[in-house]
């Protein structure tokens, strides 16, 4: 990979203490991972293997003790605007309009009003919500809410964008549209993205690189490079793209190895 590493994770382990039983849950073990500038890294793995744990640590929402995690060379200590997060359940604020949700990050950074308005409009247009600026979230569909969440994160201009199964809660048709759109957005903004998903197809469709996790305690099992130019990544044409089908089948095979029937949950 060219460019510099934006996110560096070294020998990261995590144990959740369990206050009731006194035992702890071993969620992550010896994670080493680098995400480079403009790179889209997808993480797949069986349920409960520690994907969300990893993302929360990088987001600064979960303190860690073993190993290191750095963004732009700075050790992660708590949340910050350099790491934007798109959660599965959109988590946009119901009391803010679309425009004010998207501009929230800039507002918090005290960016001047005029510039905020300009940038907010830019991202509203980018995610296709033109005309909905003054609507409240309860007036939007699930897919539109998730677009607001993506635009909100992009607008704050983070060094790296973290996405935890962002499209898992929308219907299949909307999901395909959103995936196509995310591709277009990545091409337009050149963002660095760490993307977690359950869907092997989604990982193969979106990722420059796909990291496959083992069962808990989560370790990196393998990584697969998916060398398809962004311009070619359109769902209409993917079904017949041999590189895509090959990567998808390979990832699927690896994930299947991890999910055995006796501890599937």
């Amino acid at each position, binding site marked *: 990979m060219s460019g510099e590493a934006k996110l560096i994770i070294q020998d990261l382990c995590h144990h959740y203490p369990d206050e009731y039983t006194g035992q702890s849950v071993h969620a992550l073990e010896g994670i080493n991972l680098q995400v480079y500038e403009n790179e889209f890294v997808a993480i797949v793995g069986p349920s409960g293997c520690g994907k969300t744990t990893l993302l929360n640590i990088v*987001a*600064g*929402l979960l303190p860690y003790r073993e190993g290191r995690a750095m963004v732009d060379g700075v050790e992660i200590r*708590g*949340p*910050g*605007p350099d*790491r*934007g*997060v798109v*959660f599965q*359940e959109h*988590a*946009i*604020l*119901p*009391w803010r309009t679309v425009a004010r949700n998207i501009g*929230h*990050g800039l507002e*918090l*950074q005290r960016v001047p009003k005029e510039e905020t308005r300009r940038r907010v409009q830019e991202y509203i247009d980018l995610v296709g919500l033109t005309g909905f600026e003054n609507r*409240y*979230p*309860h*007036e939007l569909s699930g897919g539109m809410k998730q677009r607001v969440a993506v635009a*909100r*994160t992009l607008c*704050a201009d983070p060094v790296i964008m973290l996405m935890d199964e962002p499209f898992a809660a929308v219907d299949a048709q909307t999901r395909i549209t959103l995936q196509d759109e995310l591709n277009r957005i990545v091409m337009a903004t050149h963002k660095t993205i760490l993307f977690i998903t359950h869907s092997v197809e989604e990982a193969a469709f979106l990722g420059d690189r796909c990291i496959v996790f083992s069962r808990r305690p989560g370790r990196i099992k393998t990584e697969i490079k998916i060398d398809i130019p962004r311009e070619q990544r359109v769902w209409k044409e993917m079904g017949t793209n041999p590189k895509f089908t090959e990567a998808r089948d390979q990832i699927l095979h690896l994930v299947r190895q991890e999910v055995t029937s006796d501890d599937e949950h």
Partner: protein
Amino acid sequence: MTSIDLQQTRRFRWKKFATEGAGRLIIFLVGSVILWALISAFLIERPDRYLPSPLSVVLSSADMLYKGSLLSFYSDTLTRLLFGGAVGILIGIPVGLALGLNRTVADMFYPLMNFFQSVSGIAIFPIIVIWFGNSDTTVLIVVLYTSFFPITFNVLSGVRAVPVRYIQAARTLGASRLQVVRDVLLPGAMPSIAVGTRLSVGFAWRAVIAGEMLAGRPGLGNMIFSGQELDNSAQIILGMVMIGITWIVLDHYLLRPLEADTIERWGLVQR
């Protein structure tokens, strides 16, 4: 326009008037007064003693208006309500917020708060009278005390009910703790703040009336009380009607618009 069209438009306007906002309120009030007049005129044996007619209540109010006592009673009572209630609510919101933010502090103060919440405003009345005499201060303290608890407990639970995801989202956008309070916790607690305010003002209203009666301070409560001593039922009913109408007006023009502009607009509650 044909006459049928005209008729339909007229009927439509009438229906709109009857089912919305002020129109609905007026129809309800007029209907109640008519019903009251009928009961008083045909069902009650000695209406002047047991249920004076609307007309005699109006005459009594005209009399008191003329003497100047009605408006001064009314403004005394309203001042106590709004002042005591507002201070109670303005203290209650930050206290509830602080308790909602910090579990340790909340656990410490919760039993104490629970204790005093159960001791109603009327129950503390005698001790306040011993401290401050039969004064306006006494009435105000009881009103303030009474309005403090509903808002405080509601803000406390409202803050706790704000989804953690909203807080996390704001933090990852770069919000400081103070900004989280301003942008997430306060608006997120708005449904509970609205419920708490309604309860607080409602309780404060009762406390004012009861407080005036017990402390003998001039006002609506006292006017009702002395109506009984003077055997003046019209005066009693006049006081009751004014209390009720004041509440309806407060609710309609202060509390409801507040809710409509916030929690309803945001889709946090359905109407």
